[in-house]
């Protein structure tokens, strides 16, 4: 047992932070929080604090990266030095580079990039405070920022993880569960079709556990989707999505 590892993760049916196994951490999303960005979103999800900004469609530098058939979507995930317990040195590390890539691939299928050939659409995700699940938080915030920037999209992309802790399949791991649990399965979907645009896993799951966790994560995504739509409604009014 590692130092700091809890003996049990579920006590009297409740998780260590008081949630049910299928319950999300509290999630608040606000769209349009920045002046300079073309679109932005701020998100508080449990102990995560995430800011996303979208710039574009805009001129692309360096020029040779331009695509004459569509806009190039670029996504950058980054953590503030003070977002974690041990100060993180500024600049991209290997983990950030991988998350930037899967984030882009999670979002690419919904953006109508062919409308803006030769341009860039840049999305920046800044983790201001981290408590596990920041890649899902980032994708969730990013698609709201894209919408806030007026970028035409097929749908929003909500993301949510499920996992396994102390033998239980649970939704939306927080940091203690993430550090000491058995598996983490982040998922992003395109709600209108139910298709999956992000899927990663590390840990150990049987086939059955995987199927159970996968379905739970998708349910979580649908709850996140409602919060995304609410945020845009609050910003732009109207009661339809």
């Amino acid at each position, binding site marked *: 047992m590692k130092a700091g590892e809890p003996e049990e993760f579920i006590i009297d049916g409740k998780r260590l932070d008081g949630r049910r196994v299928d319950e999300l951490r509290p999630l608040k999303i606000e769209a349009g929080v*920045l*002046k*300079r*960005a073309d679109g932005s979103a701020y998100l508080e999800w449990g*102990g995560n*604090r995430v*800011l*996303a*900004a979208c*710039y574009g469609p*805009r001129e692309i530098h360096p020029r040779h990266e331009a695509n004459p058939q569509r806009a190039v979507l670029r996504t*950058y995930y*980054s953590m*503030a*030095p*003070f*977002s*974690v*317990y*041990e*100060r993180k040195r*500024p*600049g991209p590390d290997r983990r950030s580079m991988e998350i930037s890539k899967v984030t882009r691939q999670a979002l690419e299928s919904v953006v109508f990039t062919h409308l803006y050939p030769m341009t860039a659409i*840049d999305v*920046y*995700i*800044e983790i*201001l*405070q*981290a408590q596990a699940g920041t890649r899902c938080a980032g994708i969730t915030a990013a698609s709201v920022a894209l919408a806030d920037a007026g970028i035409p999209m097929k749908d929003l992309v909500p993301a949510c993880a499920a996992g396994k802790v102390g033998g239980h399949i649970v939704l939306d791991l927080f940091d203690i569960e993430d550090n000491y649990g058995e598996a983490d399965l982040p998922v992003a979907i395109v709600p209108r079709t139910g298709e999956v645009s992000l899927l990663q896993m590390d840990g150990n799951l049987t086939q059955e556990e995987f199927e159970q966790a996968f379905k739970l994560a998708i349910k979580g995504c649908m709850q996140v989707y409602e919060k995304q739509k609410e945020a845009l409604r609050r910003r732009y009014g109207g009661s339809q999505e």
Partner: protein
Amino acid sequence: MKHEIIVDVKRDHILNLLNSGKRIDGRAFDEYREVSVEVGINQRAEGSALVKLGRTQVMVGVKLSVGEPFPDMPDSGVLTTNAELIPLASPSFERGPPDEDTVELARVVDRAIRESRCIDLEKLCISEGELVWIVFIDLHPLDYDGNLFDACTLGAIAALKNAVFPKLEDGRVDYKTKTEEKLPIVDTPVEVTFAKIGGHILVDPCLEEEEVLDARLTVGYNEKGEIVAMQKGGSGTFTQEEILDIVRRGREKAEFLRKHLPGDADGKN
């Protein structure tokens, strides 16, 4: 070229307004934008602050770690000030290693903090010559609408005053357990920036003013009103009289800014 022409047009517009006594956002020449300072807004940092200066938003985090002192200062803690101009905050900020502007921002904020001796660094010595506290101040603009110097210095001092030590055990920091002991902050320096545009002197330039200014002067003051740091910027010049005038007038602006710092736990301020 497009950019140059737009800047010229903007400059003419701003200058015409100034010639008739008006700033582009309606402020008086010696008026700051609305200032707000929130502290304790980040649970991972030992100290934190969010400063808004109009639409400029800056987050500052203070992290405390331990390490060896510098050989020539064996009984003194270490202060490190770092800035990141993340491209989220402005279309003019680029990814990559720190550029000239980023480095200047970090160093000018650091100067006021270091030269005012506002942190009692000797109280950060744990074991002489072996182990001292290292104070990291991370300046993190989130929305850039001008005058980062003043916003970041204010945020840094607010975050420092907000900071508490984490628990130290066997020479290692337990970041998850915070103590109630505060950082030893003994002064509250602030910086005040004036811009010169076509002979007009304005305090707290907003972004549109920054883009067209001839010259800029930032002055840091300690609580006694003494000058602890200065930095002239911009490719233009100041007359000697303008400089003397700015330095005199800045002192009361510094008092104004300092009032926005949250009070101490003990009710002082």
